[in-house]
């Protein structure tokens, strides 16, 4: 009888060992990291003076904004047959924008200086690429087997984006956030952690305003180089981070130069896009010509768009009806970080603020 019991030991011990390993490994990874103490100002300086301009790595973006998750199948089915300009094209572009606001996306990033970048958004059995080399920018979508070439004017380093590869590196996002740090924000240094196996300082930006949905933003700054490796946005009243973008692994050496030479494959549909027209022709075709109005400052900024032909047709889109809820005076697209209020007269108000602030902005004029 005892021999029988001994023989059942491995069946119990092996799962137990694995379960213990699974529980202990994350604990040891989160164990306190010893770094020399720094003031928020010193960490900010590290970010500003970082000398890393060549690296490669894998970026994982997770969004938990309380939006319904759209099944991946719907996205690929929609991408097969979209003609720009038609109603289905518009729905597809809304879907593409919403896609990056839900679920988890993985991308590989290769950067060598300011003029050579390659971004690969890894989908299941497909990939979307953005290759920027000097004044040439290629966008490639393997699901459609279509390549788009954009030539940048000399000296212009801003890369156009059609929304299909809207993943930023944590560094780009951190720069954008830090640029907006002003008197409305408290900057502190939180507990040191590890991102992609590297010890990081945790720079925490907390809004002073009570009228914002953002609870705090924390930026993981590499303790050695000052390169931001993680951006984490917490929403008020939500336990899990609303938005997280972080390197899952990073190599601080220049990637192989061949990666930035892109030749469209044989058989691909190649389109050439001119720069100045492209932005207004494709990306913002639905937007009215009038510029958006910005009210408020800091975290409780409200951006409003005047009524235009595009916004009213958007109200009828079944896609939008699915994700918005009806509120007094219009419809509301509510996420844990951002509220978009579409008033019945076609105006659009957006901001990281509660609905009441948007509504008062709408009735204020």
């Amino acid at each position, binding site marked *: 009888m005892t021999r029988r019991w001994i*023989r059942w030991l491995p*069946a119990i011990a092996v799962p137990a060992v694995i379960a213990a390993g699974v529980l202990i490994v994350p604990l040891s990874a989160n164990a306190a990291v010893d770094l020399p103490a720094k003031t928020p100002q010193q960490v900010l300086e590290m970010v500003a003076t970082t000398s890393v301009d060549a690296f490669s790595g894998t970026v994982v973006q997770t969004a938990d904004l309380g939006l319904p998750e759209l099944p991946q199948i719907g996205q690929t089915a929609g991408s*097969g047959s979209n003609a720009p300009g038609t109603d289905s094209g518009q729905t597809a572009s809304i879907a593409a924008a919403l896609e990056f606001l839900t679920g988890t996306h993985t991308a590989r990033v290769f950067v060598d200086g300011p003029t050579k970048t390659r971004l690969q958004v890894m989908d299941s059995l497909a990939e979307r690429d953005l290759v920027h080399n000097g004044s040439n920018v290629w966008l490639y979508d393997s699901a459609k087997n279509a390549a788009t070439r954009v030539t940048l004017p000399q000296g212009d380093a801003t890369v156009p984006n059609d929304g299909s590869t809207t993943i930023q590196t944590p560094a780009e996002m951190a720069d954008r956030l830090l640029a907006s740090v002003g008197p409305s924000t408290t900057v502190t240094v939180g507990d040191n952690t590890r991102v992609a196996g590297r010890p990081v300082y945790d720079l925490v930006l907390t809004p002073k305003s009570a009228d914002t949905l953002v609870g705090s933003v924390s930026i993981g700054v590499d303790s050695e180089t000052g390169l931001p490796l993680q951006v984490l946005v917490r929403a008020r009243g939500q336990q899990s981070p609303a938005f997280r973008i972080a390197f899952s692994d990073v190599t601080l050496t220049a990637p192989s130069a061949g990666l930035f030479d*892109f030749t469209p*494959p044989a058989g691909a549909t190649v389109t050439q896009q001119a720069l100045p027209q492209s932005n207004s022709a494709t990306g913002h075709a639905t937007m009215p010509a009038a510029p958006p109005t910005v009210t408020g400052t800091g975290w409780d900024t409200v951006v409003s768009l005047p009524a235009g032909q595009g916004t009213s047709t958007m109200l009828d889109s079944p896609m939008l009806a699915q994700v918005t809820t009806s509120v007094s005076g219009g419809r509301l697209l509510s996420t844990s970080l951002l509220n978009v209020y579409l008033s019945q007269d076609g105006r659009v108000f957006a901001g990281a603020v509660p609905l009441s602030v948007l509504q008062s902005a709408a009735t204020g004029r």
Partner: protein
Amino acid sequence: MLGALAAIPVLIAIAVRVTSGSSSGRGPAFLDQITQNGLFVALTAMVVSTPLFLPLTVGVVAGDTISGEASHGTLRYLLAAPAGRVRLLVVKFVGAAVFCLSAAGSVVLAGILIGAILFPVGPVTLLSGDTVGPVESIGRLALVASYVAVSLLGLSAIGLFISTLTDVPVGAMAATVVLAVTAQVLGALPQLDWLHPWLFTNYWLGFADLLRQPIAWDSFGSNAVLQLGYIVVFGALAYSRFTTKDVLS
């Protein structure tokens, strides 16, 4: 069964050849590229057979390992020889693993052959948009075959364990295949996010990462670790069950 698996790429290739070209963006991945490059027959066949056909055959083989011998009444005689039960289990599992490799290999090999016969063969366009020569692409196809073979090892271990539970091989085969399908259904539900990394089917379609430039090895590694975990857990369960079992037939 290997012949039935090899028939999948042949069927795909003939269907595409006869209808001459499909509209792009429809059907399984890589289908619309077959007419330009025969090597894509192997990839399309892999995408089609990974969710059902391969697990089906592996389930049949792994489910038959122990219970098949029991139902034939040969298990007693095998154990009468001084080989020991552990050794029998190991040999049976190695046999199932060899079948996984040859199953994945035969799909890819048949795909390459029929593709080369019916369509032109040339440089292959990777998912990243870069192109690689035919020699490297055949190397990558071999990698894809080994990836899929590794993916099926966890299922073989599960099948081996279920096979020790019963003397009815059909029951063990059916249970193994049902588990494979259930795991994939669970993997398709976004509400069960937390469970996904633990499903043995989680990385099954990850072989696409071998078709990127440069190759993303992460999924190969995570897949191998996950399958190893399943092998260890179900191997231990099978050991405990089989060494304490009263073999009557």
